[in-house]
């Protein structure tokens, strides 16, 4: 596995929001099929990482390089990154009134197929797939007809994100605090959906504050993000360690930080 080519390579990434640097020298390599959990205290830059990678307006890359499948991510527009296989599951999914879920999903799938030079999927075939995906994430079929996230509960929104992932079949999924606001049942549904998508050519970045989600989605690696960089990496056991200790120790070890620097 270690000989395989990286799917995602992040080298010394520095990034800012409104002129305030949030990511301060982040390095990360992800190979196809790996699941990486990124944990850390509030304000560490966890969500920012997802936004920077997906190219959200207002998130500025100051220095560093990121490649996806060997291509320079920062030379691509947001939609081009998506078409290259990057998927962000939003922490706070956005509502688009009047635009039905189905219409939105079909347009997204079409755009990505087109970018890959594939023919557009027929409406009938797509509907079949969408219904299956709906079922898989435990959403009533009627949700396909409703406006994108319009009036959905927190859990429904998260499942809707997952459904989009199922249909778009990305190479790299960034799950941004997908567990926030979910009860245990919803959490299991989401985790099962994610696990069903794990495969040798699909990687995940699971961003979470709590270890709880990682009981259901077993990561290959766990990284601790603090003040814009990864301060500790390990295997799944690190998550339990964190759960036991909390994040307070991060503030207590400035010396180590300085040594690293």
């Amino acid at each position: 596995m270690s000989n395989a080519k990286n799917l995602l390579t992040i080298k010394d990434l520095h990034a800012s929001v409104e002129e305030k640097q949030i990511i301060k020298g982040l390095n990360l390599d992800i190979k196809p099929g790996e699941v990486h959990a990124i944990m850390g205290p509030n304000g560490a830059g966890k969500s920012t990482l997802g936004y920077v990678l997906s190219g959200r307006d207002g998130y500025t890359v100051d220095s560093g390089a990121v490649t996806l499948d060997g291509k320079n991510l920062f030379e691509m527009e947001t939609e081009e990154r998506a078409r290259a296989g990057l998927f962000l599951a939003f922490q706070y999914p956005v509502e688009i009134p009047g635009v039905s879920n189905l219409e939105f999903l079909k347009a997204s799938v079409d755009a990505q197929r087109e970018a890959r030079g594939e023919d557009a999927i027929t409406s009938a075939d797509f509907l079949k797939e969408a219904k299956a995906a709906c079922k898989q994430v435990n959403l009533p079929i009627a949700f396909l007809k409703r406006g994108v996230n319009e009036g959905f509960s927190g859990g429904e929104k998260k499942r809707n994100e997952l459904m989009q992932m199922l249909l778009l079949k990305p190479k790299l999924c960034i799950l941004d605090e997908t567990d926030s606001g979910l009860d245990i049942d919803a959490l299991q549904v989401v985790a099962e959906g994610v696990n069903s998508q794990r495969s040798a050519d699909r990687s995940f970045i699971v961003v979470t504050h709590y270890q709880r989600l990682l009981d259901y989605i077993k990561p290959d690696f766990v990284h601790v993000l603090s003040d814009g960089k990864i301060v500790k990496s390990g295997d799944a056991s690190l998550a339990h360690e964190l759960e036991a200790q909390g994040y307070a120790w991060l503030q207590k070890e400035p010396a180590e930080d300085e040594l690293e620097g």
Partner: protein
Amino acid sequence: MTEQIDKALAREYEAGFVSDVESETFEPGLDESVIQRISEMKGEPEWMLEWRLSAFREWLEMEEPDWALVDYPKIDFQAISYYSAPKSMKDKPKSLDEVDPELLRTYEKLGIPLIEQQMLAGIAVDAVFDSVSVVTTFRDKLEEAGVIFCPISEAIKKHPELVKKYLGSVVAKKDNYYSALNCAVFTDGSFVYIPKGTRCPMELSTYFRINEQNTGQFERTLIIADEGSHVSYLEGCTAPQRDENQLHAAVVELVAMDNAEIKYSTVQNWYPGDENGKGGIYNFVTKRGICHTSAKISWTQVETGSAVTWKYPSCILKGDNSVGEFYSVALTRGRQQADTGTKMIHIGKNTKSTIITKGISAGKSNNSYRGLVRMNPGADGARNFTQCDSLLIGDQCGAHTFPYVESRNPSAIIEHEATTSKVSDEQMFLCRQRGLDPEKAVSMIVNGFCKEVFKELPMEFAVEAGKLLEISLEGSVG
């Protein structure tokens, strides 16, 4: 972001071509002799001329309205030609074979084939080119059902009793400045009569085309739905791309007798002028319908064209239990100005009205909703619901709402709501993160915003309207 949206909004006006048709056009100018000549060209009876002249005299005494939130240079009514018709139409072609092929080509280019075999089966078309009706299709089929669908100039001669009774009965001659002008100089338009208890077997449609330079188009439409009848009528309009402004002042009157239903849909795509506001149509239109007992009139409009729009399709809910509806999408960009809305006048008991409007402003345009809901003292149990939503795209445009709410009946209920929003950065980011390009994302979000109105359009028009909006939004995203 805004930059992208603006880019997406810069569009081509696809209907902007000029047809090479030899026309007979009046010299610019307006006086009683011009009106006499129009009447003569049309071979009208004396009463019609008298009617026109009396309207003209009223018009001379009136003042141009200035209350709308639109700004345009004063119109020189003497610089406009009031009649223009293709020469080939002079001999009144008896069938399509005799119609100038260039005219047929014009409509084909606009996506309105007039050869019946090529047409959408369910729609009969009256094609009006400048001041004359070129052809009205499917007339035989309609006649079988007893439906009269013909140019109004023909109805004046063939059905004078109906025209005399109803022309000017809904919009009085001196109702307003432009309606008075229209009464004096109208040239053509459509006439529809649906007999008692008849459901019109197909959609009726009129397609208006301005071609000649410096002419005004003054069309007149009169639709009478007799007791218990039903008709769905569609209207479309385009004009060539020119640097000069052109005036379009139409009057539409609808009469819905007891238990009748008229559905009137418009896709207005007159040339809007260029980015800097040069050229474009001044669209000053009076549309009004009267509903008798348990009748229903439903106006649906998609307004994407014209440099200046001044238009308030209205319902007089005279009969008890009658229903009025107004669904509108108005998109303005560049330097377009739209002041549009409706009036719902509740006179009868238990009358109901619904107003749903979606205004989209982009570029340096201004888009206003202006409406009136009035509950008269006799309108017991009447009900109105109004929802006006505005979407702003960019920070150089304006979106405005001017609703007049007047109630004199305590048992009537009026509810009015207005909101304003923008295409949010979050929505754009979500769409793009899923792989949609910015243009597609904006048009999707805007279409979603308009959905409530689009679903009121007949199927063929809904598709056209969606496309029109998409074209309008092309290149407007950032």
